């Protein structure tokens, strides 16, 4: 494995336009923040397993906007059934990108199921995603960026990344701050009076 997770996320979020981003708890949320904290990021600090379906709710509520879920392999494994739910709903504006280091990074780098060969992209494909790919190099990341920003979803990518300990870059923690800044940036000031 040669890809570094921070490089992958930075490439996906460069010139992000009006992209809406949900980040699963742990390293994926820190990666997202390292690429630049943004009001249209919703970094999760809990609810492990819920990142993909949170992206689904957002994609259904905002069909004219692109939605990207960035999460880890451990987080995705905890919500594996949600891939089937997304495959049934088939939101064209949703992408799910799993940064797969084959480890539970926050708890001591223990091996996840993907270290033993579980193929998340194959599961997504079999669940009805429009496309599901395995990415191992920067050329693949470049194609992935196009798919996330322009392609017809639902799109899934499993990106194999180096298992590494890197500095924490933390977004705001308070849930209401994250929610309100997101809604205000997306829906306008009136959202705070809804």
């Amino acid at each position, binding site marked *: 494995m040669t890809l570094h997770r921070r490089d992958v996320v930075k490439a996906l979020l460069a010139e992000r336009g009006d992209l809406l981003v949900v980040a699963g708890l742990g390293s994926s949320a820190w990666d997202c923040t390292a690429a630049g904290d943004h009001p249209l990021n919703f970094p999760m600090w*809990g*609810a492990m397993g819920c990142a993909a379906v*949170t992206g689904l709710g957002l994609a259904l509520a905002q069909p004219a906007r692109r939605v990207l879920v960035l999460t880890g392999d451990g987080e995705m494994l905890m919500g594996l059934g949600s891939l089937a*739910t997304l495959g049934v709903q088939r939101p064209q504006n949703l992408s799910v990108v799993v940064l797969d280091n084959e480890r539970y990074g926050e708890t001591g780098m223990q091996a996840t199921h993907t270290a033993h060969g579980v193929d998340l992209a194959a599961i997504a494909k079999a669940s009805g995603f429009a496309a599901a790919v395995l990415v191992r190099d920067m050329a693949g990341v470049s194609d992935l960026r196009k798919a996330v920003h322009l392609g017809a979803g639902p799109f899934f990518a499993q990106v194999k990344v180096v298992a590494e300990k890197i500095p924490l870059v933390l977004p705001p923690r*308070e*849930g*209401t701050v994250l929610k309100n800044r997101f809604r205000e940036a997306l829906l306008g000031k009136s959202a705070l009076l809804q």
Partner: protein
Amino acid sequence: MNAPLPTAVDWSLATHQVLSRLGFGVVGFVPDGGHKRLIELCQADARMRTVVMSTEEEGIGLATGAWLGGAKTVLLMQSSGVGNIVNALGMVSECRIPLLLLVTMRGEYGEFNPWQVPMGQATAEVLRAMGVVVQHAGIAADVAEHVDAAARLALGGYSAAAVLISQRVIGIKSFQDQASQ
């Protein structure tokens, strides 16, 4: 007396009317006998997006994401499903997401399946422990009024509120009743 209690009230229809009037645009559900008619009414409503889920926990993410995008969500589940959403409810509490839960009860009024009883008896306590406001609807005529009140509390108070619809309303009292639905 295994048949449902006779009722002049179509609680599912009245509940659908409340949800429609209050503008609930996303309806997440795990298929359930007690909610069968309400699910069908929501599926037939062009202004509601129904989402069938593989587990109730998905509904918490669904509702959070939908609210970030400006849409209101109601989740339909059986009491056993409440056990599946406990940790995820922490997100709703921390982020103060308005959330309406309509829970058809098992494991209480006349239950025939002993495996349903533990979760059914713990449902209200578990919800309250996670900060969800709980209302009980014991008769069909009360359901829609409770749904209206709970929805207003959820939306007005940026909170989660649940209506527990008694097994007395649902009327399932034997495997034969369940199979004939």
